[in-house]
């Protein structure tokens, strides 16, 4: 039984529709998204009294956003912990609203990673920039972002017998969802995917290996994009145009390379129980899992860590097309098409929240029948190294 606290809700959303947006800056994408998310909420620009910002792109953080928007918020939060920043910021907005410090909060994201040709997955190990204690122990070895995640995949396969075919189930269901989402189809076209239709497990296995054991079709796209959301107190939410989507519980955690540590366990194993406990919800009750799919292994690991199945049992859990939006088995997974096939400009955490809200409003392009409860779990950084886990559990009104 979910808890009955209804203190803060997501009341406005906008996902920037383009994944290739030449001539736009990240700040412009953020500002346009904020304006449209506020329009979606029905709340006024002048109602905003809290800004949460990751300081991405040319953003400038909470200070720079305030200046650009011409607002003078009294809660300013520049939490920047990679792709899960938006789950962390949602947690902080709930906390700040409960404390009576904030009433209407905005979170935004903008990136032109595709137009800038940013090599997010295959850059890495540059050996450039200011000296630092961690870079000096890693930069000489040619670690790419993909290779770091691939090391988790190898260890997962070694410990539990997971196969590439098991991991490919994630790519297959996610792509199905993308084919139903017009923005995702356009994204794949604009980013010149080899094909934009459904794919099979064999297609994934036949795609080229980028870093063993991860194949091309197990890796997210690099797009432009962004979006925004509006979080309001219960009182402010009463003035919103649409039904609020309530924030029931949140959890935050970090993890990193540790001597003797288990690389197959993510920060989600720490953040999720906190969120589930606060929400008074069990994993098996959830209709939707929006999990950061930077790579297939990210999702497999996190499904286990969130408690949908036991550690190491992903390979059995994944069988039978269970992740589809129309599956009889809960939860459906990444129903917008995910980072794999819809939207990944570098930090996907915001989109996990946006699609959760669409599902709980009944607005998704792959709508789950009678969706009541969702989790958005962001993973920021390197799954096999420094990373964060942010869990947010959401409920329909």
């Amino acid at each position, binding site marked *: 039984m979910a808890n009955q606290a209804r203190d803060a809700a997501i009341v406005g959303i906008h996902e920037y529709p383009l994944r290739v947006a030449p001539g736009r800056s990240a700040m412009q994408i953020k500002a346009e998204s904020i304006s449209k998310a506020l329009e979606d909420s029905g709340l006024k620009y002048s109602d905003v009294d809290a800004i949460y910002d990751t300081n991405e792109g040319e953003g400038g953080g909470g200070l720079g956003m305030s200046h650009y928007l011409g607002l003078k918020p009294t809660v300013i939060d520049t939490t920047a912990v990679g792709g899960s920043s938006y789950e962390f910021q949602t947690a902080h907005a709930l906390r700040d609203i409960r404390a009576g410090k904030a009433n209407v909060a905005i979170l935004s994201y903008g990136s032109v990673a595709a137009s800038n040709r940013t090599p997010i997955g295959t*850059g890495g190990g540059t*050996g450039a920039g200011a000296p630092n*204690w961690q870079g000096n122990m890693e930069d*000489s070895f040619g670690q790419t972002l993909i290779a770091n995640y691939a*090391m988790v995949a190898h*260890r997962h396969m070694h410990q539990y017998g997971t196969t590439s075919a098991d991991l490919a189930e994630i790519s297959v269901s996610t792509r199905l969802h993308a084919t139903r989402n017009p923005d995702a189809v356009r994204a794949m076209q604009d980013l010149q995917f080899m094909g934009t239709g459904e794919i099979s497990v064999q297609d994934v296995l036949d795609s080229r290996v980028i*870093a*063993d054991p991860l194949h091309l079709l197990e890796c997210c796209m690099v797009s432009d994009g962004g979006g925004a959301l509006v979080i309001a107190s219960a009182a402010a939410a009463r003035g919103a145009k649409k039904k609020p989507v309530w924030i029931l519980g949140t959890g935050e955690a970090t993890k990193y*390379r540790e001597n003797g540590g288990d690389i197959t366990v993510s920060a989600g194993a720490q953040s999720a129980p906190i969120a589930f406990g606060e929400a008074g919800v069990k994993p098996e009750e959830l209709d939707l899992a929006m999990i950061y799919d930077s790579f297939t292994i990210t999702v497999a690991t996190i499904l286990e860590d969130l408690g949908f199945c036991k550690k190491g049992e992903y390979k059995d859990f994944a069988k039978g097309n269970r992740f589809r939006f129309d599956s009889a088995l809960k939860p459906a997974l990444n129903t917008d098409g995910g980072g794999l096939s819809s939207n990944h400009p570098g930090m996907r955490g915001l989109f996990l929240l946006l699609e959760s809200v669409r599902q709980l409003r009944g607005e998704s392009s792959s709508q789950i029948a009678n969706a009541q409860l969702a989790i958005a779990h962001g993973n920021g950084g390197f799954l*096999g190294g420094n990373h964060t886990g942010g869990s947010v559990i959401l409920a329909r009104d």
Partner: protein
Amino acid sequence: MPNRPQPRFPEPNSQPFWEGAKRGELLYQQCNSCNGVVFYPRMLCTHCGSLDLAWKQSKGEGTVYTYSVVRQNRNPAFSDLGAYALAYIDLDEGFRMMSNVIGVADPTKDVSIGQRVKVEFEKQDSGDYPIPVFRPV
């Protein structure tokens, strides 16, 4: 010679490690208060918070904890290497370091989890600090 990125200084946490590498020594830290092993090098013990850390020399022998063979890296220092094995190595003294497994004919076939490896210090065109890499024993 390989042309890998060099460590960059000033960086006082890791400088003793790299000076050790120049002497052919693989160094790690151990806490004088709780005997906990600390790696990567830093200022305090991650087990108990003590500032009383000692540098120790590893025998340089360990096992491959996990690895990935990198097929694509946009960095020229690595794109010229061809496919190479990135790995976490668990040293016998109880610390885990990132490195590469070298000296195999085909890294996609000849590297495996649990494989025993030993450190060697690979001289570089890129600078004075040799890079500690691991070869199967």
